[in-house]
């Protein structure tokens, strides 16, 4: 699908313009002002939101407060797989002559300053490391074998940061785009490519919406679409970023701020049992999760 879009950018249509972005910004600033009044965040100690924290605040506020070092539930395999597949696809986007391998992807991560994967691999037995790398190759190889060459006119960029400061910096919403193509100042429409090593799930859409919102508010023009690519099941989804989608993304961030404010002020965090409870590190001590089980 990516190859088709690169060949026919007109399929993407125009991105949402300044009026929609202004409405989204106004909505966010209102929520931020109200949230800061309750939550007490400051420029020095701001509320920091990213795709995961927004998702968790809306799904289960208690889960959103879990120590981030425990959030993976001790199983780092999926995180490592995710990083390797992401890095391989990013390398492929940068245009090597031969499709990148898992070793290339691990090397690219290290060269880019992230030693998480190489450290984790070094901590495993040789058999366990080989098994993990084989699983990574099973996901990465088919992905990069079909990855199209990206023409330079699309300005291929990887790991591009986007940040939004609300309430004068007391709330910061940030994201790092896997791949960004086109958009200003190029004449081509913006296309966010979001990579997932695992299978497609619904939250992938919301992550893409948030990135589109951040890029739109940063650049003054929203990307035309988000393309989600999931290596685990081969699913790809192209979502046009219509005005309603952008406003919904802004509403989700606004709601996350509203949920976070009383928590920051010291009120207890409610639990909302949901299908992700089995993977939550709080589950053994969470009465609501136990009852739901």
């Amino acid at each position, binding site marked *: 699908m990516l190859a088709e879009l690169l060949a026919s950018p007109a399929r993407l249509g125009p991105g949402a313009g300044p009026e929609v972005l202004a409405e989204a910004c106004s909505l966010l600033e209102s929520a931020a002002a109200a949230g800061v009044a309750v*939550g007490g*965040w400051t*420029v*020095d*100690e*701001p*509320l*920091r*939101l990213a795709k995961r*924290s927004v998702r968790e605040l809306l799904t289960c506020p*208690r889960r*959103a*407060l*879990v*120590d*981030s070092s*425990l959030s993976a539930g001790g199983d780092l395999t999926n995180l490592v797989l995710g990083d390797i597949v992401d890095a391989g696809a*990013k*390398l492929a986007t*940068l*245009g*090597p002559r031969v499709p990148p391998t898992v070793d*290339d992807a691990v*090397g*690219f991560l290290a*060269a*880019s*300053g992230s030693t998480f994967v190489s450290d984790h691999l070094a901590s495993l037995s040789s058999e366990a490391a080989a098994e993990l790398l084989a699983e990574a190759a099973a996901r990465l190889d088919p992905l990069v074998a079909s990855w199209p060459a990206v023409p*330079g*006119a699309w*300005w*291929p*960029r*990887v*790991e*591009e*940061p*986007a*940040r*939004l*400061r609300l309430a004068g910096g007391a*709330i910061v919403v*940030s994201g790092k785009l896997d791949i960004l193509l086109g958009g*200003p*100042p*190029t004449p081509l429409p913006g296309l966010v490519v979001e990579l997932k090593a695992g299978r497609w799930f619904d939250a992938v859409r919301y992550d893409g919406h948030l990135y589109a919102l951040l890029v739109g*508010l*940063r*650049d*003054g023009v929203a990307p035309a679409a988000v393309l989600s690519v999931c290596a685990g099941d081969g699913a790809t989804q192209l979502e046009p970023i219509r005005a309603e989608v952008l406003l919904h993304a802004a509403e989700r961030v606004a709601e996350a701020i509203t949920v*976070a404010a009383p*928590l*920051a002020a*010291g009120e207890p*965090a409610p639990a909302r049992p949901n299908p992700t409870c089995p993977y939550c*590190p*709080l589950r*053994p*001590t969470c009465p609501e999760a136990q009852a739901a089980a």
Partner: protein
Amino acid sequence: MTPTPTEPATRRGEAVGWADGVRTDVAGRIEELVEGLASDADPGAVYVGWFAAAEVAGCPARFRAGGVDGWDFPGWSPQSAAASVGRSALARCVDRSSELPDPLGTVKAWMRDVRSSPTSYVAEWVTHLSQTGDRIGLAATAALAARWIAGFVRVVGWPFPEKLALVVDDPDSPSARRGPPPWRPRLSTRRVPVSVASKPDAIAGTVAPSGRFDVMFHRPNSRDDLALAERAAFEATAASLAIGIVPAHVVLSAADTGERLRFPVNDPLLTRGADQVVEVIRHRLRAAGPLAPGTTEFDDATPGPACRYCPTADDCGPGQQWLARPRRHNGLPVVSLG
């Protein structure tokens, strides 16, 4: 309305004399600090740049804990080379074409060009990567440098403002300029060599006694920068000291937020910047000397989230107090297990 004496318009014609005044003032304040230094203290060379100023503003105690060695260049890596490679590649590209540059293609073309005859330290490093077959290191460098170019062009705007010159190590082109050397005040007490550095990414306009030029600083990722006005103050003063002419504006841009702010340089801004420069030197000298009676190493610590990563937090009372508060992460309380 009649402009006040601090507004840039009334000082432009005397931008050189204005910078001389800043130099005289800062040198005098440094002289006083050095004269107060204990006779057996040896602070070594004192280098003042924005990172040092930001560290002092963040927490003076943590800055002093770095000892007298101060900040040192960590060596080239894809991260540390990104801006240098990006500027060099972009300068070469805009000399050759007025077309909107393709960031990745621009970087790759520059890498190919410099392999045959590297004319700067960063080009030598890139050539070394190439000669040793480190294609992944080259790819990472190209990715980060292309991101730098993309952000700079997007935020500064295309076509570039007239007379914009990128600051590079090998300015062999009309679109490039070598950065100013650090300012080294001549102190009557020659015990402490001080240098104040200004490292703009670009200069717009003509560096001339009229002072009608802007110094531009670009960040791909603004992270938790201090208030931008503080950065502008430091850079205005450092540029005036290093160049010897007061610039008209300091332009700060950030790729992640899309911000581009233009601060007019005036006396209050220069005074704030001079204070920052002097504070860096004061704390570097304090780190070299004995503690004054009634003080501790940590009496001026300004604790905050950075205490979690501070190498001296174990010994720092204010830091320990801050860390003993109920734990928060990203502005929210942390729920522990059990």
